[in-house]
């Protein structure tokens, strides 16, 4: 383990290809389940440094779209291109190594372990230490300080030794984000990060997303149902409906778009 690997944030060491083209390009991507077209011919581009929301009614295909980006599902058509490289055939593990990191709509934590332990396994994995059956004091100190740095970033100070399964739902989701951050994401995918949260918890999460984008320059794509959040923080919005891109653009354009209003926003207001 070197200082360089410890400090890899996703901003450094980007291959030249990524500087010019989009970070992520979904090229006419589809995912059909039998006759159900969960994602149907979606073309989508996202540039480094963007903070983008994906919205759409339930069943629109948002989570499936994330599954195609993260590699949980192979597409039935189209290509997934990351930094100019075709990664359609790559596994989850290969994509994580490239910096495509996600959280889930349903909370995925290590419930019997502490906040510290949840994040530590993320840090150790990012350092590719999983196969190491021993650890030196120096390495342990470096790992621990990185864990506390992440705890600090997500504002869970003072909760490091709490058992995650016993935390409030909002804090559990924050732990998930911290674990995702430990993987040094180049593209962070958050599937409904505020789902099921109270107002206070939601504020905490929204603030976290905003800070990650502003302070760390992180590229974030998030699925969200709360329109106040979406229009409050997203720079661009992609609207999915029945597996297709209904509209895409800046918040003002989206809220003014008659098709979006008809298909989706109107029904929520």
């Amino acid at each position, binding site marked *: 383990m070197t200082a360089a690997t410890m400090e890899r944030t996703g901003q450094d060491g980007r291959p030249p290809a990524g500087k010019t083209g989009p970070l992520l390009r979904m090229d006419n991507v589809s995912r059909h389940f039998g006759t159900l077209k969960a994602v149907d011919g979606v073309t989508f581009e996202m540039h480094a440094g963007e903070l983008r929301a994906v919205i759409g009614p339930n069943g629109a295909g948002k989570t499936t779209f994330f599954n195609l980006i*993260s590699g949980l599902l192979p597409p039935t058509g189209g290509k997934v291109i990351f930094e100019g490289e075709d990664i359609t055939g790559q596994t*989850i*593990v290969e994509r*994580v*190594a490239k910096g495509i*990191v*996600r959280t*889930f709509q349903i909370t*995925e*934590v*290590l*419930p*019997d*372990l*502490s906040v510290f*332990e949840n994040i*530590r*396994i*993320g840090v*150790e*994995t*990012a*350092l590719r*230490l*999983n*196969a*190491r*059956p*021993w*650890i030196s004091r120096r390495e342990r100190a470096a790992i621990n300080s990185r864990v506390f740095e992440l705890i600090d970033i997500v504002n869970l100070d003072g909760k490091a030794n709490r*058992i995650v399964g016993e935390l409030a739902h909002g804090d559990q989701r924050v732990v998930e984000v911290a*674990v995702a951050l*430990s*993987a040094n994401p180049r593209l962070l995918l958050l599937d409904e990060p505020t789902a099921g949260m109270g107002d206070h918890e939601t504020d905490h999460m929204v603030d976290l997303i905003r800070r990650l984008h502003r302070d760390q320059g992180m590229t974030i794509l998030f699925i969200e149902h709360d329109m106040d959040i979406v229009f409050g923080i997203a720079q661009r919005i992609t609207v999915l409906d029945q597996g297709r891109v209904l509209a895409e653009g800046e918040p003002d354009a989206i809220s003014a778009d008659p098709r979006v209003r008809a298909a989706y926003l109107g029904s929520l207001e």
Partner: protein
Amino acid sequence: MNRIIAIAAIWVALVALPWWLPLIGGYTALGSKVLIYAIATMGLNVLLGFTGGLSFGQAAYFGLGAYGAGMTLKYLAPSTPLAILIGTLVGGAAATLLGPLVMRRRGIYFAMITIAIGQLFYFIMVRWNEVTGGEDGLAGFSRQDIHFGPWLYRLDETNFYYLVLLGFTVAVAVMWMVLQSPLGHTFVAIRENRRRIEFLGVRVERYIWAAFAIAGFITAFAGTLNALLFNFTSPQDLHWILSGNFVIMIVLGGMRSFFGPLIGVIIFVVAQDYLSSITGNWMTFIGMIFVLIVLLFPRGVLGILARRVEVR
């Protein structure tokens, strides 16, 4: 700090065991047996309790270690260290080679394939009569005193106990180191939420394989010592009943805690030893103790006391 004092106290008690155990009606070989089973179950627990792999056929590797050691002494060379080495390698290599068959399966299927493999080795030892002694077991070997240059370490009952205690100490130190390492943290994370850790980029199956291999080597090591303790081994040492007993011992003591299996083994072996001298139905009593403990302490005896400390 308390923890270090507790471990030091236990270790001192173990060193002094040949003096105090006879005073309460035990005998030194019983101490050896407890430590041997403790090595086996703690090794198995790396897989069972820490990685979440339900191995119900672990006796296979215990038995392979035992046969490996016995056959080394009987057919190869009269050397105790060599017997331990070869037995451990045979059992550990078998687990390592079979790991890929096991690692992809989950839950009950994992349990079933491990039982099936275990029974396969059981039948091999029963059938391969001329070499293994078949149903009657492998006899006709005995542990040999150990020579260190001019020094001779006579392996009488007490000295053999100290050899076992040394083995126990080394095995415990190795397992402790592993469970405190990133590898050990990975094992626990797999147990807790396999999908989450997969999404961090961990190839989960490889690590289940690693846990299976580590458990195999350690259990085989215990098996070699068991063969040396009795100067005998039989197909019962590979049988699924022993595999089941290992699991019972672990659950009794607490599968989430590092030293839990040791406590479980003490309860089990002592109960077996005392009860079987009173009644032929001792297994029924073990069953009753088991049910009571599982009802009273769902996390095992030690699990209650040490819920947090152990996984760190």
